């Protein structure tokens, strides 16, 4: 049982990464051990895929010690727009 929930992660990511959009899905059935996250932030601009993920991992370093299953999709605003367009098609 981790002490974290979707709201906490969402707030932290929004604040620390100045994210424009954060969507946290708790896939743990409430135990707080498994999350899936979409993050859209200018902070990812010019970064490689690995660098983006590293940035998020660093931001949540403390939390990830307890969250054992964490899945992220990290986009710049431009990339996010493209993703949404693709989804609509």
């Amino acid at each position: 049982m981790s002490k974290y929930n979707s709201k906490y992660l969402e707030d932290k990511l929004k604040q620390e990464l100045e994210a424009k959009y954060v969507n946290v899905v708790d896939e743990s059935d409430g135990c707080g051990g498994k999350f899936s996250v979409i993050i859209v932030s200018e902070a990812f601009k010019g970064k490689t895929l690995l660098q983006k993920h590293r940035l998020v991992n660093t931001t949540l370093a403390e939390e990830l010690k307890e969250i054992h299953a964490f899945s992220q999709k990290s986009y710049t605003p431009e990339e996010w727009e493209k993703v949404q367009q693709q989804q609509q098609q």
Partner: protein
Amino acid sequence: MNRICQTLLRQSYARAPLTSNHVAATATRCTRWYSADASPPASAADVVDKSTLEKLVRTNKVVIFMKGNPQAPRCGFSNAVVQIMRMHGVQYDAHDVLQNEALRQGVKEFTDWPTIPQVFIDGEFVGGCDILMQLHQSGDLIEELKKVGIISELLKAEEAKQEPNTEEKKK
């Protein structure tokens, strides 16, 4: 059940090829995955050290540290990576970190990456499950594999589609 699995894994381990100083040099190169190589060093150190890992990640063009083995992944994320590699027809070396806590901690420190699985291409850390999934979906994985001389099965299938007569010409 668990004991049977462990026995099987140990047997496969015994047959696994040489990947580090800790594995018997007489092992034959037949299987491509390893359940428990890089066994804890004799010094009983807590982690597998950097130089060992530097060798391990270069034993094949693609090297994966995962939970379980490719035939029986023991984590959804590891399984996803195995399935992606299968789709691309990639031959790789896999290491089961559940068999070796020192390796599990060692590789995490080595890459400064908190989670398993971890994928290396040409000795370079590429990422975990999410990144592999994104590379797969964007088509970039095909390019990354090409850089190290691996032609993805998906690319072959794609090319075969574009040239439907190639097979016939050969005949």
